[in-house]
Every structure is written in structure tokens, then in C-alpha cells.
């Protein structure tokens, strides 16, 4: 019996030598706590289709966004099914920090100027620290500059202003699917009639489904609560399309029933209706430039 103990004792002494050679070293370089992994590329650009996504233009980058909506498909052959018309927006967006992006745009629709700020409040993360969602806040304002049409009213500059406030909640589910929930409020300083609300609430969202490394299907929907806009017949906005990614460009090609391209226009002023064929073919071209290279790369 004692012999067995002796052998066991001897055997134990050999144990360290039986372990694979590098295990002790791997143990040494193991991270004490797992690294925090921030979710990247929930959406490919700052827009899901026509509305904002939680993505900001990266810090030090400039994104030039050219948005173009053709005319409605139901305008017939004489209008080449909308191809002879266009509504455009030329925009520029810049990432000031990892959590703040800002931009402005010029819209051909009512010659509108718009500007926005987008704040990333929480980021979805896993690993050492976990958080299930990315949450952003978006504030924009749009001012139309066409000729004043209300002859009986003084032309205050502020009467031309509208504002939009959005909270963006998004989650990337695995590699392929991202979903976003977007409640919005549009404020118009001046409305057409007494029955029209100045504050207009919508609720919506969208998603992205990656089908290959560089192509995804996107869709977006915003429901406008009834009886807020009564002087014009407005509808919910629905858009879907594809994101095509190349090196420095992202092309978004889509169909939508919203002709307008800034938030006020498509959330509170979508007069087109899918069922009637008021469908607009459109695209966004995003071209990204790195203006400020990260510190490590400055020679």
C-alpha cells in the first residue's frame, strides 16, 4: 500500500512535464477580463433607406450623400413613368467624435435647407461589458426658402422652420439581421389650418438583412397617427431597397412612396400611396472621405 503512495507521489512530480509545453505561457497572456466588443456595422450608412439609422459618419470622416428620387411610377408614358422628374438632396455629414455627427443638406423640394445633429448615447456591446442596444438621438431642422404664399400673413423667417426629434433604438442580431425602432416628433412652426397639429408624432422603424458580404436588403416604415394633419391627405411612409457596397461608396437603391427627402418631408408630408402607384424610384450615393487620419498614421 505504501508503495502505491510512493508511486503516486512520484507520478505527481512528473505531472507538470506532461502538460503541453506552452500552456503556462498561454495562461500568462490570458486577458484578466474578457475585452469589450462594440457592435460594428449595424447599418451600412447613416440611413436605413430614407430615414436615419443609428450609424454616424466615423470620426474625422466626411460623407457626401447624394439623394435622388424620380417622379411617381403612375405618371404614365408621357412622363416616362417618373424618370423625367427628379427631387434631389445634396448633403454632407461629418463625424466630429465617436458619438457626435452633424450634417446639412440642400433639397430641391421647396428649396429647403436642412441641418442635423446626431448623438450616439449607448452602444451595443458584448464580451466584458454587455448592452443589448445602440441608442441614438437625432435632432434636425429644415427651412424652406420658396416664395411666401400666404399673402394675408407676415413673412416671418421662423414661420418657415420645421424641426424633427427622433430616438433611434437598434440591435444587430448576429451577423445578418439588424432592426431599428424609431419614434419621431416633427414640429412645424406654422401649419396651414387651425385643425392641423404643430406637433406631429410618428412611430416606425426599419431593418437590414445582409444577403452577401456587400449586399443587403433594407426596409423602413413610419406610421403617422391620424388626425394630426387634416388639410392635406397624408399617408404612412414605406420604403425598401438594397444597399450595394463597393470600396469607398455605398449605393442605396430603393422604392418609396415618399417624394421628400428630409425628415419633415417624409414623416409628416408623405402624400403618395403605394396602392395608387405613387411609387418613387430613388437612390442615395454615399461617398466617404477620410479627412483626419488617426494619430498613429500621421507621418
Amino acid at each position, binding site marked *: 500500500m505504501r508503495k502505491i503512495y*510512493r508511486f503516486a*507521489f*512520484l507520478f505527481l*512530480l*512528473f505531472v*507538470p*512535464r506532461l502538460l503541453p*509545453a*506552452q500552456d*503556462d*505561457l*498561454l495562461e*500568462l*497572456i490570458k*486577458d484578466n477580463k474578457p*475585452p469589450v*466588443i462594440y457592435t*460594428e*456595422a449595424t447599418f451600412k450608412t447613416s440611413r436605413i433607406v430614407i430615414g436615419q439609422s443609428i450609424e454616424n459618419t*466615423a*470620426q*474625422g*470622416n466626411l460623407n457626401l450623400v447624394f439623394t435622388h428620387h424620380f417622379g411617381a411610377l403612375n405618371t404614365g408614358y408621357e412622363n416616362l413613368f417618373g424618370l423625367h422628374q427628379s427631387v434631389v438632396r445634396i448633403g454632407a455629414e461629418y463625424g466630429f467624435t465617436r458619438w457626435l455627427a452633424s450634417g446639412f443638406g440642400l433639397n430641391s423640394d421647396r428649396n429647403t435647407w436642412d441641418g442635423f445633429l446626431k448623438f450616439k448615447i449607448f452602444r451595443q456591446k458584448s464580451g466584458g461589458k454587455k448592452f443589448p442596444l445602440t441608442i441614438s438621438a437625432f435632432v434636425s431642422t429644415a427651412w424652406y426658402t420658396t416664395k411666401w404664399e400666404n399673402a394675408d400673413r407676415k413673412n416671418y423667417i421662423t414661420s418657415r422652420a420645421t424641426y424633427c426629434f427622433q430616438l433611434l433604438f437598434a440591435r444587430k442580431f448576429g*451577423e445578418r439581421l439588424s432592426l431599428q425602432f424609431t419614434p419621431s416628433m416633427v414640429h412645424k412652426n406654422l401649419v396651414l389650418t387651425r385643425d392641423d397639429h404643430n406637433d406631429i408624432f410618428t412611430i416606425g422603424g426599419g431593418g437590414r438583412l445582409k444577403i452577401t*458580404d*456587400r449586399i443587403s436588403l433594407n426596409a423602413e416604415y413610419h406610421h403617422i397617427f391620424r388626425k394630426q394633419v387634416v388639410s392635406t391627405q397624408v399617408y404612412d411612409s414605406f420604403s425598401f431597397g438594397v444597399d450595394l457596397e*463597393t*470600396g*469607398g461608396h455605398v449605393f442605396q437603391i430603393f422604392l418609396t412612396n415618399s417624394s421628400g427627402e428630409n425628415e419633415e418631408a417624409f414623416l409628416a408630408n408623405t402624400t403618395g400611396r403605394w396602392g395608387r402607384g405613387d411609387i418613387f424610384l430613388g437612390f442615395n450615393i454615399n461617398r*466617404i472621405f*477620410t479627412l483626419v*487620419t*488617426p494619430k*498613429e*498614421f500621421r507621418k
Partner: protein
Amino acid sequence: MNRLVFIIAMVLMISVQVPAQKYVTKNGYIRFYSQSAIENIEAMNRQVNAALNTNTGDFVFKVLMRSFTFQKAMMQEHFNENYVESDKYPDGTFIGKISNIREINFSKDGIYPATVEGNLTLHGVTKPVKETGTLEVKNAMVTGKSKFNILLSDYRISIPNTLVNNISKTIEITVEVTMNKITN
């Protein structure tokens, strides 16, 4: 008999417990570089974990793929999302040996040529590699340096047809790890 067992045991114990000389770092440096006609792509990582056992020559390093920084944010996103798939394969590792460890005098400052052999794991693929570099001993620190090329296709990293002119098929890897001695 008892005494013999005891003596053998003591001898073994001593041999097992010779303090291993280990050097370790958590902020080593790895850079990779792709040169092509259209653009050069460069990425850096200063959070490389590495360790060396100077008795056995065992050498390991580990790098979190997500902590590579690129000149352009889009490149970084593409790197993580489409090329190395950092969600699926979060880190790259090397596990191997410095095969000429006996020729290196760790108690004397100097730069010594070193041959490293082992397995490099990247994008979920493990390949045997054998590369040369140097080990510099200075002020009780050891700096390992090596520059070598890897073939992307070896690691199942594919370049789409539209970008074959933008990304090189072989990537130059530069490793520089300065390790401090630890006592245990």
C-alpha cells in the same frame, strides 16, 4: 529503499521547480501592410499579448483582431466584417518555439538572430510557419522582432473580384514585442 525514494523525489522536485525564466507583455505591436497598384493598406495594433520562456524557447502571442486600427474607418469595418470576420474569429494566435534558444545568452545584452517555428492561427485556420527574426536583450527586457509575409488564401480570406487590384494577395506582417521579465 525509503531513503532512495526520498532522494529521487527531491532531485525531481528541484528540477521541476527551477524557476522558469519568463518574459511577458500586453502591449506588443503588430502591423500589417498590403501594397497594391491602387492603394496601400496599413493597420496597426498595439495591444498584442506575448510571452517567452527562455528555458524551453516556448513563444506565444495573441492579438485581438478588433483592436487593429486602420487609416480609413471603412477599411477597418470591412476588415472586421468581411475579411477576418472578427465576430466569428475574435483573435489571432501564434503558438510555437524559438528553435535556437540555446544560442541566445539572456544574461548578456545584444541582438541575436532567432528562428521561430510554430502554428499561426488566423480566421479560424491554423498553418505551420517558420520565420526568422531577432531577439534583443537589453536591460533585462527581451524584444522580439520579425517581418514576414503570409498568403491570404492560406487563411481562407478571399478578395472579391472587384477589389483584386486594391488588396495584395500577400500581406507583410511586422511583429515587435518588448517583454518584461516576470518572477513566479
